[in-house]
């Protein structure tokens, strides 16, 4: 679920006014650690920086305790605990929630309202009934995680979670790390997560809340930080892990992969590109605004930093509202949302990059007929309209969106197809017939998720992230074949 690595917003020269500790270390018999201080405006975040020996003890502790305690719990108990903690983070009067609403805007630079709504929408995915959906979606019978269960093919099977999963999280979307963290807990694995410098807080809070909710789990996980690319450390940790889940751009993932030994599985989640498709049937005088409103909502949520965020919208010609009019409607909505949910304050580098990108786009309108660049350089958004553009280009993000007109979906597929390995979500507004027809075509070029506009950034619980499974990819199945059972019958003491 990853887009560009976000820059840490730090103003080192200011005097700090507030310092908080982050991360979560289980009880390894010592509490004194070196510290890494990350600075965000007036906030200092203090993270424990473990020596290799301390790290080794964390690994041993997490492995041992999760094997003894977490793996002895029934999956429904684990669901209850995670569900309870999630409810605490959803409750706006809880101290956890208030802390998140107060500090995440400072750390990430996102507007308070963006964080507030983003957190609620995201956390709802981890309530008890949604967690049950995760389990049933992947396993059918969640009891597979508890005991050997009868199989339709004959015999019995049990799903075993790894001894240790190491997560290397990104910081593009606040709180996102808990997706893989929760998945790891559901399969009763020991979990060690490395937080990103750009959002080092949420995963640690979640771990702390879990330990408070169920103190016996306190040593089953850890949330740590080390400098990305610390090869010695990564090699050491990955060697002791059964599974490494990495988030980041392809370079980060490549570097991580190099440190993962052959005996450890590596699950990479890299850069993805998502977009929207709007049928002419959705573009009548009554519905067009609502569609533009929803489309703009997908753009402004975390300023397109998620892998599921749209880079462009393909808009079909022939509706009552033309594609260029639709582009203008989106522009109007982006301006309205700017007042309600302002864009994150960009760093100097980001602003400069965006301005030069915009300038290039504006220059090209002299040579490309029909092309329009909407908004001015004072706006916090840009909409570029192009007639049947033949190139599939990614957006520089931060509320920059391209609207491209098309006649038939078949016409644009050849331009999308080369990006197969990068494609992920489609936000679609179309008739039921078109929806299924287009879904077939898009599935063939590599798209893995089709959703409604306005929902692009809120995947359903149990969705197939990049076409993969949340839990199945983490576990291994142990089979007792029917022959073994049949054979065993003859050795029963009560055999007649």
């Amino acid at each position, binding site marked *: 679920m990853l887009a560009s690595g976000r820059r840490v917003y730090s103003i080192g020269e200011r005097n700090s006014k507030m310092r908080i500790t982050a991360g979560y270390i289980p009880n390894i018999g010592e509490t004194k650690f070196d510290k890494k201080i990350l600075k965000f405006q007036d906030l200092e975040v203090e993270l424990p920086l473990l020596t290799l020996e301390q790290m080794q003890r964390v690994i041993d502790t997490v492995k041992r305790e999760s094997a003894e305690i977490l793996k002895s719990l029934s999956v429904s108990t684990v669901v209850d605990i995670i569900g309870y903690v999630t409810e605490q983070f959803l409750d706006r009067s809880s101290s956890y929630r208030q802390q998140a609403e107060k500090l995440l805007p400072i750390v990430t630079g996102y507007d308070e*309202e963006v964080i507030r*709504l983003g957190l609620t929408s995201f956390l709802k995915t981890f309530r008890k009934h949604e967690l049950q959906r995760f389990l049933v979606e992947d396993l059918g019978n969640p009891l597979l995680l508890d005991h050997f269960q009868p199989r339709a093919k004959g015999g019995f099977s049990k799903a075993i979670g790894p001894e240790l999963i190491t997560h290397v999280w990104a910081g593009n979307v606040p709180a996102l790390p808990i997706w893989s963290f929760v998945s790891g807990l559901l399969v009763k694995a020991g979990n060690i997560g490395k937080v990103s410098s750009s959002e080092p807080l949420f995963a640690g809070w979640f771990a702390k809340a879990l330990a408070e909710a169920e103190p016996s789990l306190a040593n089953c996980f850890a949330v740590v930080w080390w400098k990305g690319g610390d090869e010695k450390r990564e090699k050491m940790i990955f060697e002791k892990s059964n599974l490494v889940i990495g988030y980041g751009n392809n370079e980060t993932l490549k570097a991580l992969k190099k440190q993962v030994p052959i005996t450890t599985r590596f699950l990479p989640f890299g850069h993805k590109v998502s977009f929207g498709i709007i049928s002419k049937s959705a573009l009548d005088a009554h519905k067009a*605004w*609502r569609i533009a*409103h929803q489309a703009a909502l997908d753009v402004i949520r975390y300023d397109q930093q998620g892998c599921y965020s749209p880079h462009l919208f393909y808009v079909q010609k022939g509706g009552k509202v033309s594609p260029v009019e639709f582009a203008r409607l989106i522009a*109007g*909505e982006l301006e*309205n*949302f700017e*007042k*309600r949910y302002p864009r994150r304050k960009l760093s100097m580098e980001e602003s400069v990059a965006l301005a030069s990108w915009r300038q290039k786009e504006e220059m090209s309108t002299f040579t490309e007929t029909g092309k329009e660049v909407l908004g001015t350089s004072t706006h916090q958004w840009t909409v570029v309209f192009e007639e049947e553009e033949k190139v599939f280009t990614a957006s520089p993000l931060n509320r920059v969106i391209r609207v491209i007109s098309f006649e038939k979906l078949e016409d644009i597929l050849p331009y999308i197809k080369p990006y197969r390995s990068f494609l992920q979500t489609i936000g679609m507004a179309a008739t039921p017939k078109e929806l299924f027809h287009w879904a077939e075509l898009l599935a063939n070029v590599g798209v893995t998720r089709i959703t409604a506009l306005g929902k692009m950034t809120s995947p359903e619980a149990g969705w197939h992230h990049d076409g993969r499974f949340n839990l199945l990819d983490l576990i291994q199945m142990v089979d007792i074949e029917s022959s073994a059972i049949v054979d065993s019958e003859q050795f029963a003491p009560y055999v007649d």
Partner: protein
Amino acid sequence: MNFEGKVVLVTGASRGIGAAIARAFAKEGAFVIVNYLQNKMLAEKVAAECIQLGGDGYAIQGDVTSEEAVNQMIEEIMLEAGKIDVVVNNAFKSFQFNPETRKLAWEVQWEDYQGQIDGAVRSAHYICQAVIPIMKKQSQGSIINIITNLVERPIVPYHEYNTAKTALMGYSRNLAVEVGSFGIRVNCVAPGLVYPTDASRTTKENLKELIIAQTPLKRIATPEDIAGPVLFLASDWSRFMTGQTLYVDGGFVM
């Protein structure tokens, strides 16, 4: 628009819409009297901002529902500023705009109405009674009462609040007729849902979305949106308008 040399009293100006109005006047050079009830620190901050913005600012405590307190406050303002050109009656009795927990018609007690009527009409009345003699002497003055677009279209029937604000509209029209002969104008500004303010902090997203969908300008108001029409009604540009209500709600009511 230039309010240099003008003295503007904004009641309930330590936060939300009142603070936005105060800042907007200051930006145009006015000497803004920032009235507040409790938030001394916030009010002083607004006054300081007024100075920064190029005007002047002065925070003054005063319970506008107390006649004595109002008279004292106006006296103090006269000592400090020597005149009052514009009054914005923005203060109101605190009210939670929550459509889910509001009182149903049959739950509303007379005291609920009385509380809101005191907050809206009684307070405006005390202020007007105190400033009209001053404005009469000046042969000019502009009074702007902040009401709500719910007086025209009660999309959520906050009975006591809406009724009190409707009363304030009636009060303003009658007063306008009376004081017009002295060159004093009385008008109302009726905002739609304004977010964020302390009063609307708990308003749910689905209500906001519902209103946005029916609003031609497709968003809800910010406190800053309300200031423009207030400044217009305070200025000479509206010199031939009195007894009017300007709806500032993106076209929700028309």
